[in-house]
């Protein structure tokens, strides 16, 4: 079975990875802090956003009805997908109906969640990821490592090498090949420093611009020849039946306006009541996601340009809605801020979680969305420092939810036998004061024994025991307080 413990050990040992993640996430957090400093109403906005989402979720039947009715009367086709497989099947059906052999995709986490690309390929429809980061992920055959920064742990050298292998650039730019970047290992390279003759940030930007320009040219031809555009949605407005798509690159605009057919796979958690609510959410999302006051493009699609098919994706969401304690996880707007602040994410990257939604939100969401046992390890992949709860723009109490998951898993018997045994013995001992007093081990014995065997030894390998006092509390009490009370 996949073990977080094992994978995280590998990732933590990779110092280069931590450096890259640290640099990228710190930059995002600094930019976010800069914007928040300019927003005295930030806390009030977060709370309001949470309330709007909880209101929508606790009236989801009503808002779904509204959305479907409005979207259909605007001319869109709307369907329901209970599972990811069903959603994929529906996308393929729409493609077949329109004779589509190539589909351009805007960046979409639901698309990743349902593994749409695999299904399209199986149906001989070519999926083309058009967000630059997602394009790299697709070419490399890997999952995005962050919800808003898919290739957060890739260096520019690695991107250049991949684009050359794929024939998208002719040669590795001179600045990169000078330092023999071809030999450097993926994870061993340092981030933003002078190892590849690219120490000067402006030279790095110039090289990045050349790579992006080449990728843009390669993708432009795909845009022009694609029969279908596939996107997700950041918000779905119930009253007006509007899809709202937020981006910086313009690839989503291209995906929704160039091909004749647009298919949007939209989680049912994306609903908000009215267009006026965008005032709240669009004040929060770009700030939390990328530290921007506003993203470059916010598209409002009220009605089809030509053919619009909206697939409402359940895939475990209604089951989560029925969870009275945890349904607020459905209010997540996928900004990625909790990943940026998480000390665990910042060492293991998104790939350390082996999940489409990584980081704190992924750790609490994945065990709800997927039944595989591996995902039940994720709530333990946290230091419970609480930074995620503080940063979340819709105020999901993530640390609290992580803790609750641990309780649930323990209650279901998911606790290691040694730990369970130790606590059972301790509980028995505490209920028998006579035995406890006579059997009470001296502190130096504990220190000597704890590190010798089994789980204790593993525990001690990475931790120091606190130094024990010479005198036990019981003895101290007897000498001091007990006498005075007499």
């Amino acid at each position: 079975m996949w073990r977080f413990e094992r994978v995280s050990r590998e990732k933590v040992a990779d110092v280069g990875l931590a450096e890259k993640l640290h640099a990228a996430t710190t930059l995002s957090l600094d930019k976010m802090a800069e914007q928040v400093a300019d927003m005295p109403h930030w806390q009030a906005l977060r709370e309001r956003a949470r309330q709007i989402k909880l209101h929508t979720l606790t009236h989801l039947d009503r808002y779904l009805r509204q959305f479907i009715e409005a979207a259909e009367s605007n001319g869109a086709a709307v369907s329901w997908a209970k599972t990811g497989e069903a959603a994929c099947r529906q996308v393929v059906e729409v493609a077949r109906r329109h004779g589509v052999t190539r589909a351009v995709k805007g960046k979409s986490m639901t698309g990743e969640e349902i593994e749409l690309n695999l299904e399209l390929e199986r149906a001989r429809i070519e999926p083309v990821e058009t967000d630059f980061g997602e394009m790299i992920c697709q070419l490399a055959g890997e999952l995005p490592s962050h919800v808003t920064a898919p290739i957060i742990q890739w260096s520019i050298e690695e991107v250049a090498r991949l684009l050359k292998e794929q024939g998208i650039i002719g040669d590795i730019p001179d600045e990169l090949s000078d330092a023999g970047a071809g030999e450097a290992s993926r994870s061993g390279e340092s981030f933003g420093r002078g190892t590849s003759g690219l120490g000067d940030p402006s030279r790095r930007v110039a090289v990045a611009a050349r790579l992006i320009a080449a990728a843009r040219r390669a993708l432009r031809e795909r845009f022009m020849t694609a029969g279908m555009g596939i996107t997700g949605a950041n918000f779905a407005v119930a009253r007006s039946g509007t899809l709202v798509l937020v981006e910086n690159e313009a690839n989503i605009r291209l995906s929704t306006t160039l091909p004749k057919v647009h298919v949007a796979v939209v989680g049912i958690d994306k609903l908000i009541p009215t267009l006026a609510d965008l005032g709240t959410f669009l004040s929060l999302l770009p700030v939390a996601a990328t530290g921007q006051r506003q993203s470059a493009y916010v598209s409002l699609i009220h009605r089809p340009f030509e053919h619009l098919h909206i697939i409402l994706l359940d895939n475990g969401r209604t089951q989560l809605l029925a969870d009275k304690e945890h349904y607020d996880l459905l209010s997540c707007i996928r900004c990625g801020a909790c990943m940026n602040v998480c000390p665990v994410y910042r060492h293991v990257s998104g790939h350390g979680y082996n999940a489409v939604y990584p980081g704190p939100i992924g750790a609490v969401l994945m065990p709800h969305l997927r039944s595989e046992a591996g995902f039940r390890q994720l709530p333990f992949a946290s230091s419970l420092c609480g930074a995620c709860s503080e940063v979340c723009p819709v105020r999901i109490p993530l640390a609290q939810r992580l803790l609750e998951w641990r309780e649930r898993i323990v209650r279901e018997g998911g606790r290691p036998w040694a730990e369970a045994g130790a606590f059972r013995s301790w509980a028995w001992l505490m209920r028998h004061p006579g035995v406890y007093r006579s059997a009470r081990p001296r502190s130096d014995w504990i220190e000597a024994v704890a590190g010798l065997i089994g789980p204790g030894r593993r525990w001690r390998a990475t931790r120091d025991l606190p130094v024990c006092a010479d005198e036990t509390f019981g003895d101290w009490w007897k000498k001091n307080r007990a006498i005075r009370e007499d």
Partner: protein
Amino acid sequence: MLSEKIEDISRIVRTLSPVAYPEPVSPPAVEGDLVTLFEERLGALRGPGDDAPALVRVADVDDAARCVAEMCKDVPPGEIVWEPDSAELSNGESAGHAPQDRAMGITGAAALIAQTGSVILDVPNRPAGRASLLVDRHIAVAGLDRIVPDLPAFYQRLSERVDAGERVHNQVCVTGCSRTADIEKLLVVPAHGPRQVRVVLCNASFDWAAFRLSVLAYRD
């Protein structure tokens, strides 16, 4: 099928304690002159190395036309994409240019947002988006009356229009140039869209048809 699913959700929702829709939160009032703020915010969105003024203020439609004609004086006619007018739109796709990259796109603007430096564009059909998308440089021209303090105010008003039964167009809110920071968080301009966004702001009321004719006249 759909109504069955929603029945399921109704049953679930009934077990949750309903949360009330919250009171509004007022953003801090946008202070000072809206045009000055818009100019500052739009200017801050320019890409690296783009130093020319992002906002040009003109007196009237004729001035605006002269200004835009000057901005595209070196651009061959075939390289200019105009936002289609209503007659062209009713012809649908046939009026649209073949979708390929051009040097310059010229559009109006449904609104200008002071606090974010955003330009709101109506996109009533597929070809209509091209003038702000498949171009290297995009110029938006609008009258002073289009300035709105911030996005919450704009979306509030839009929501009210929809509630009143108005059929609003698809829309895009453009805030600066097309950009990406996917590689090592290095800011690269452009990504898939325009490298540059300019706004020509007209002090007097603005008329699109007259403006377009004047630009063409000045170019001749």
